[in-house]
Each structure stands twice: as structure tokens, then as C-alpha cells.
């Protein structure tokens, strides 16, 4: 009796549940590839208003507010970014422009309005702080997949757990990092960076996800520095995709004259 009832229940449940969005993946490079697309390449372009709250271990807080414009040249490939700061007021109008180039070093420019100065930031290490927060440049624009070796460690009901080790350990401060990728949305929900001793010293967590224009989007991300006890929370608000950003706004001209019409929400 009992077995029959259980079987019946199982059949019913299977019939009622929607089919899985993705079948179970087993190839690590396929998984990280999809995760990369989900996290950094939603739509052909996008706009988001970001607020950063930077907290140190003593409870001191700093705030950053900026608008992020992005255009994909190719899915999973080159991208263009424009980051325009609005707050604190003393840095209003400061702009970063990034030409992300897969397989090559990115090009980065910085405009400082109070100095009326455009400066190219030399290629090289992208694991430096993004405007004093606990995020690195690389966390904002994505780390090139080919820089690491990726291994699928575990597949749970919810996550793929990937361990990545750098091909050139001298260029990074970590020995390895693990990423928990949501099986349904393919968004990396958590990353933990470890030293050679295995000690985890840095942790990224996506604490809120919203589906916007059909794209699951991490709208609140927290990066913790476990050495110092500080952390940064970034909220992405008013995110929009496929808004038709023109190529011309990702130019040097836009540094001095940010494209106001594209920075405002509709």
C-alpha cells in the first residue's frame, strides 16, 4: 500500500512541476561560460544605477553612487563600459571608460572633472580596488575565463560548485577561488577566494536577484574582506537591458561630456 501511494505521489509531482530550465551540466568550462554570460552579458547593452556602501571594521561608512552603461561588442567577448559618478558630490562627473578586450589587456580611461584631466590607466593588474571599495575592477567587469583552470567540484540541487586556479599565480593574490553558480539562473551567487593555506580571505555574495526584462540580475552584491572585517554592498537599481545605446557614447568625448540623455532613467 505504502509503496503504491509513494509511487503515485512521485508521478503526480513529476507531472505538476515545470521542466528544469537547464539540464544538468557536467562540463566545467561550459558552466563557467554560461555563468559569465549570465553575470556580465545580459542583453546587448544595459544601464544600471549603482549605490555602493563601503563599511570598514570600525563602522565607518563611505558612499559611492554611479551610473553604469554597458555595450556588448560580442556575447562573451569584447565589451564597452562607461561609469559616471554622481555622489559624493565632490567627485560628481568623474568618469571611467573601459574597453574590455578578451585575450588582450583592457583599455581604461579616467576623467577627473575638477582637474579637467583625462588619464589613461596603464594596462596591467585589474585586481586593484574599484574606487576604494572592496570590489576590484575585475569584479565589476568580469575576469577573463581563460586566465584560470576551472574544475567542477560538486553539483548540488541548487548549485554548481566550481573551483578555479590561476594559470599564472604570480599575477593574482589568491591561490584559488570557488564559485557557487545557481543551476537555474546560472548566476554566480557566491565566490570565495582562498590563500595557499586554504584560508578564505575574501567573499562575494549575491544577496538579491531580480528578473529584469527577462534576465535574472543580481541587484544586491556584497563583497567582504575577511582580513580587515570590512565589506562593501552594491545595489544595482533601475536596471534596464537592450535600450539601444549608441556606439558613439563610448568614446573619449563622453568622458568630458557624459551622455546625459542616456544616464537618466526613463
Amino acid at each position, binding site marked *: 500500500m505504502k509503496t503504491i501511494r509513494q509511487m503515485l505521489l512521485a508521478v503526480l509531482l513529476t507531472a505538476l512541476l515545470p521542466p528544469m530550465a537547464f539540464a544538468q551540466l557536467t562540463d566545467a568550462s561550459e558552466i563557467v561560460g554560461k555563468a559569465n554570460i549570465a553575470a556580465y552579458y545580459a542583453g546587448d547593452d544595459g544601464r544600471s544605477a549603482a*549605490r555602493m556602501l563601503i563599511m*570598514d571594521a*570600525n563602522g*565607518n*561608512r*563611505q*558612499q559611492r*553612487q554611479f551610473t553604469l552603461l554597458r555595450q556588448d561588442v560580442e556575447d562573451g567577448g569584447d565589451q564597452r563600459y562607461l561609469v559616471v559618478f554622481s*555622489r*559624493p*558630490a*565632490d*567627485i*560628481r562627473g*568623474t568618469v571611467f571608460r573601459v574597453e574590455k578586450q578578451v585575450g588582450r589587456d583592457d583599455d581604461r580611461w*579616467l576623467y*577627473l*572633472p*575638477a*582637474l579637467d*584631466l*583625462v*588619464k*589613461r*590607466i*596603464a594596462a*596591467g*593588474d585589474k*585586481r*586593484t*580596488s*574599484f*574606487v*576604494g571599495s572592496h570590489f576590484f*575592477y575585475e569584479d565589476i567587469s568580469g575576469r577573463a575565463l581563460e586566465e584560470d583552470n576551472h574544475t567542477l567540484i560538486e553539483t548540488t540541487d541548487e548549485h554548481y560548485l566550481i573551483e578555479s586556479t590561476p594559470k599564472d599565480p*604570480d*599575477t593574482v593574490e589568491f591561490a584559488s577561488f570557488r564559485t557557487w553558480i545557481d543551476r537555474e539562473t546560472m548566476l554566480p551567487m557566491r565566490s570565495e577566494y582562498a590563500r595557499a*593555506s586554504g584560508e578564505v580571505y575574501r567573499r562575494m555574495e549575491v544577496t538579491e536577484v531580480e528578473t529584469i526584462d527577462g534576465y535574472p540580475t543580481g541587484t544586491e552584491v556584497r563583497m567582504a*574582506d575577511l*582580513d*580587515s572585517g*570590512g565589506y562593501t554592498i552594491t545595489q544595482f537599481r533601475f536596471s534596464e537591458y537592450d535600450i539601444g545605446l549608441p556606439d558613439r557614447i563610448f568614446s573619449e568625448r563622453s568622458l568630458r561630456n557624459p551622455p546625459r540623455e542616456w544616464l537618466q*532613467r526613463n
Partner: protein
Amino acid sequence: MGRRLAEFAMNHPKAVFIGTLLITLLGTALIPLIQIDTDPENMLPADQEDRVRHNAIKEQFNLNDMIVVGVVNDDHPEGVFNPTSLSAVHALSRGIAEIDGVIRQDLLSLSTVDNIEQAGPGTIRFEWMMNTPPQTAAEATAIREATLDLPLFRDTLISGDGEATAIYVPIVAKDQSHRISREIQALIDELEGDNQYHITGLPVAEDTFGVEMFIQMAISAPLAALVIFALMWWFFRSVTLVAAPMLMAFAVVLTTMGALIGMGYTVHIMSSMIPIFLMPIAVVDSVHIISEFADRYRKGRDARETMAEVMEHLFTPMLYTSITSAIGFASLAFTPIPPVQVFGLFVAAGILLAFLLTVIFIPAYTVRLKPERLAALQASGRRAAPDDTGLARGLIGLGGMAVKNAKIVVSVFALGLVIAGYGISQITVNDNPVRWFQSDHRIRVADRVLNEHFAGTYSAYLRLESDVSAAAPADFAEESSAIIEQAEGAGVDIRGPWQQMLREAEQNSDDFNAKLEQLSLAVDDALFMAGDQAYPWWESLLTLIDETRGRLNVFQRPEMLAYIADFQAALADSPEVGKVNTLADLVRTVYRELRSGDESDYRIPESRQAVAQTILSFQGSHRPHDLWRMVTPDYQAANLWLQLSSGDNQDMQAVVDQAEAYVEENPLPQGITMSWGGLNYINVVWQDAMVKGMAQSLAIAWVMVAVMMLLLFRSFVFGLLAMIPLTVSIAFIYGVVGLIGKYYDMPIAVLSSLTLGLSVDFAIHFIERSRENYRRTGSFTKSMQLMFREPARAISRNAIVIAIGFLPLLAAPLVPYNTVGIFLASIMATSAIASIVLLPALMKLIRRWIMPDRSQTTEESA
């Protein structure tokens, strides 16, 4: 009283022995709970104002105590800037980062800092200075040039001559620095190459001192005991009898230390010397008893009766000497320095315990000895006491001379006092934990080498703080109301939603800046909902909020940075300051690199916004948090890190004076206050408190002892006379300290109490016995002749026992112990001479009033 106590003890010797044994065992059992404390910060009470501020500054700017590791290479022409040496530095830095207790993210070394430089026209580069060790000589040279080019690193990370480098290791707590420095040394031992490494820094000096002090406690005090024992044996020739005071001294020391530890006090530099101070004082009274017992005991006589007589005779002077010695030390409780208070009170308690044990333990012990042993003692007493030993003849001659040439003696002492007075005026108050080690100690060597190469391994922090946030909320309320009212005047009502925002912001945060932040977000949101009419008013509110927040960022204002830049330049001009590191350096350096990299652009940007954006550029580096060691995230307080090449308190004091003089000439900007922090500054504060406190406690103790003397002798003149040897001794000792240029530091300071306590002992015995002799003989001359036999010998013996007993301290590798040893000997000599020579000379000059010769007839008729 003395007789009754002694008889009681002699009737119950077992109870006395068991009681003594019990308290000693109890004390000894508590000793393993020992907690060593060498933190000079604890010289100040935990709630002391400067100490609280020092800790607040450390927390405010994420400052930690630092171990400094210097790397030098004398063999290579390029110093350490060659591939092999830098590889070792790189490996060492990586290793240090892994040590438990090291604050990894603040570790400063060539391989953990960023280089900021030009990378072609219009291009700036932030990258690790030395992420991987250089492979070629050219790469090593490039690292040297880049480091020398950055003002924040020059003379700090790299020596000015470009040959040495340093690693600054911030640690979580000072009391781990000895362990961490040993782990660093272990890493160094495994490194290859021919670099020389030096480890120093105040925390290492302090913590290492604690470790060595612990060892010294276990060596010096027992060694001193051994020497005292040998000397007493020399005088009395009876191991069994001499064992009594030694056992008692151990009982006193163990019980006192056990009590101190058991009551939860930490063993500080001062309290570690308690055994050394107690040992001689505990023995002194017993020497008097044994000396007199040996004189009086005759074969066939009842030992018990002899002892009772001796005790009856000596009880009062011993009681008074013990109480006065105890007062001398207890007066240290009037100093405002907790470890000195603890030291004074426990030595005082130990002295009283020693007295109690002396009057019960020594009699009980002596009468338990077999008659044969006592007979032997008596024989040796005979042998030691005759008047024709060298010491005896010397004393008789000395006494005769002093009495005969009283005027000259007194004049010589008076002249000595004048010179001493001059010497005292020359005393330099100074201390430096690094100087606690002898000059060939590795810490002293490291200190010398590193401070030759670099700006300085000692840190002081000068904080500038603004009161801008005090008035800001009221100003903001007024200005925002004005906008709301203007809007109403123009027919736009936004009061309701604005007040709602204010309420919400009020609820969510106590901090004004955080409130403003929340308001700005709320108004920002409101702007998107606002109609065309309301829009401009919301916009002006947002502008006001932003402007208010901007105004709060005081240390982003160019004029503030300019003040800091001038101030630091003036401070760095003084010889004591090697270098000052400030926000102004950071902003100027980043600005220079943003502009052109040329020296002409090493300046402060012209607007607050330009400063903010320059700082934002720096925050794109690997170590943005370095900023918060120079300024608080609200930009309302700035920290000037002074690197001093000397840990001397007087040098720190000179810097403080200089800063004050500068501020006098160049007033601080409106609303800015200045305050100090850092270990070196804390040392100055407690030293200041110590000097004032010592003078006060010495004065109090002097008056109390004087009152005791009046009570004891029931005579104003004799009371005053008894105070003269100690006064002269203290004056002479400190006069010599001033004349030879020895710094007045903590051990020197507490010696005043010891002098007070011991000198008065000699004077009491001398005066008491003189008066006794005078009562018997009725003649000053005869009394004095008697005085230079047995009584003078007892005093001299005591002085010699103590002085020689502490000479082993000179062998200790720690300077404060040497100081105490050498000054103890000098004090003993000075006070013995002052008592034996000056007192009789003075008495002779005033003998007509105090000891007039009585004619036989007067005596008979009286």
C-alpha cells in the same frame, strides 16, 4: 613588648616555624600564576586622559604597534637592491604575512605596496612595487628608483642612500611582539644570501625586556641572596645561625611576591625588583640581633634569657626603623603611577612582615640551636668582634677624626650639599625602553643601525581634529527650512514629504553624515517623481545636502592640506624628527603623477573637489585603506605620523614643545584642535607624572619620618639630627646623578624611597646608642669613643652586607638592574658615612646643648 613577644615565640617555636612555613608555602604556591607586564602604557591608569586619547587615536586611524625589520647589505655595492637580496626580502615579507598576530593587510614592505608612476604620455600606472622578485640588476635598480621617487616611502621603506629597506610589521597586541619577532628571526635564519637583518621597535624592546626580566628575577635575586649569605658567614662564622635571617628573607620575599601575584597584580618592571629591595632590608634587623646576641651570649648562660634581653633592647629601634622604611616605600602610593604604587605598597608590607618575622622567628630559631653550636658562635663572635680588626681600627680612627675636626667635616658636607644642589639642577629626566638593554644587545644594535639608515623606528601621532560637525546640524536645519519656505512662497508645498524624509533619516542613524546620506538618496528618488514645479526645489535641497556633506569633509580642503604640509615641514626640520607622513604627501604625490610626474606638480590641488578626485584616484590602488591611517573616512580628523630616530622621552618632549611653538606662531585653522598619541608620547606623559609624583611622595615621606623621629626621641633636636643623614644622602645621590649626566628614570626615581628608608635606620641606631652611652657615661667624648666600637661596626657591617650583596646586579644584562645595583651600593656607603662621620661632627658642634659633660658631683646629686 619585645621581650614578651620573643618569650612567646621561644615558648612556641613549633607554632612559629609552622606558621612561617605555611605563609611561605602559600605565597610560593601563588607565584606560578605570575603575569608579566612590561607595557609602559600601564604606567598610566587605564582611564588616564592621555592614555584614553592615545587609544582613541589608534582606533580612529587603524594604527597598530609595529615591529620594524631592517634589511641591510654592506657587501654589495647596490646594498640590498640586487636580485638575490630582494628575493630574500620578498620571501621574508611573504613569510611574515603568514605569522599569527600580524595584521597582514597593513604590512608595509616593498612587496606589499603599490608603485604609482607615469607609463607613457597621459598614462598613469598603479601596480605592485615588487610583486615578484627582480631577475636582473636593472630590475632591482628600477625598484630602487621607483621607491625613492615616492615621498611616502623614501626614508621609510627605503633608506635615503638607496641601500637598505625595511619591513614594518603591524601586530595585534604588544605582548605578542617577542614571540612574533622570534618567528621572524626563524624565517630570517632560513633565508639565503648575505643580507643583515635587524629587528627592533618599541614593542619588541618592551616585550623582550619582560622575558629577560623574568630570567633575571630568577638569577639576580638568588645570587644576591648567596652573596649576602657569604658575607654574613664571614662576619659571624656560623652557617646555622646565619641561615636564620636567610630563611626569613626568603620567607618574606616569597610571601610578598605570592601575595602580589595572588591579589591579581601583574609583575611590572618595578615589582620584579621587589625581591631585590626586600632581601637586604629583611636581613638588616637580624644582623643587629645576631650581632648583639653574639656579644652578650656567654657559655653557660641561658640562651633564652640572653635573647630576651637582646630583644628588649632592640625592639624599639627595630620597630621604628621598620616603620620608617615602610613609610619611605609606602609614600610611593602618592605617585600617580599604578606600578610604582604597587611596588611601594608591597615593599612596605614586606618590610613589616620582615619585622614581624625577625622578632619571632629569629629568637625561636636561635634558642632551638644546640648549646655546642651557640658556644661555637660565641667563640666566633669573640673572634669577629675585637677592636683590632682592620674595620674596627679604621672606624675608631675615622670617628676620632670626625669628632676632632668637626668644623671641617661639617664644612666639607656643607660644600658637598652646595655641589649636590648644583648637580640636582642639572638632572635630565629621560627614559627609553631600548636603553634598558646594554649597548651590545641585539636590540640596541638594531636600533642604532636602523635609525642611521631610516627616518626613524619610533612613532608618534599628531592628530588634528575639526569641530565642524558640532555646528553643522543646526546650520543645515536653518538652510533647509529657508528653501522649504521659499518654495512655499513660490506656491510649491514640499514640506510634508521633506519632513517625512527628515523623520526617517532621524530614526535610522545617529550620525549626521549618515543622515545626510540617507536624505540625499530620498531626495534623489523624489526628484524622479517630482513634477516640473517641485523639481527645482528638490534640486536645491539636494545641492544643499551635497554642499553640507562637502563642507564636513574638512581635510579635503586645500587650505587644510596646505597647513598640514607647512606644519610637517617645520616638524621635520627638527633634529629629533626623521620624517612626517601625512595626507598632504599622499595627495601631492598622486596629484604629481596624475599631472606629469614632474617635481613642479608636487603640490596640493586647488579645490576641495580636485582633492577629492585625486584621493579617489589613489583609492584605485591595491591598498586604498592606507588612506585611513592618515585621515578618518569622514575627513574630520587627520593624523600626522612622525617617525623619530630616538626613543628618548626627552626627544619626544622636544618635539611636543616644537609643535606647540609652531602652533603658537602659526595658529591652527579655525575649529581645529591638536592632540598627541603614540607610545613615545605616552612615555613622556607618565614620566612627567612620575617626576612630579616622586617629588610629592618624597616630601610627604620626609615629613612623616620626621614626625616619627620626634616621637621616637621625644626631642626636637635629636629628631632633626636623625633626618640629616638621609637628607644629605638623598641630596648627594641625586647630585651625583645630575653631575655624571645619568638620566633620571624610573629606577633612579624610586631609589629616593630606598635611601630614605635605609639612611634613617643608621641614624636611628647611631643616635639611640649615643644617647644610651651618654646616659651611662655623662660625657660626650666618652660616648663617642664607645660609639666607634660596636655600634659603628654594626652599622658598617650592615652597609657592607647590603652594598656588596647587590653587586651581582651589575652582571645582569639589563640596565635598570645595573643602575639599582650600583646606586644601592653608593647609597649604603653615603648614608653609612653620613651617619658615622657627619652625625658625630654635628653633635660635637652642638654638644653643649644636647650632651653637656656632667661633673661627677652633678651626677651624684642628681
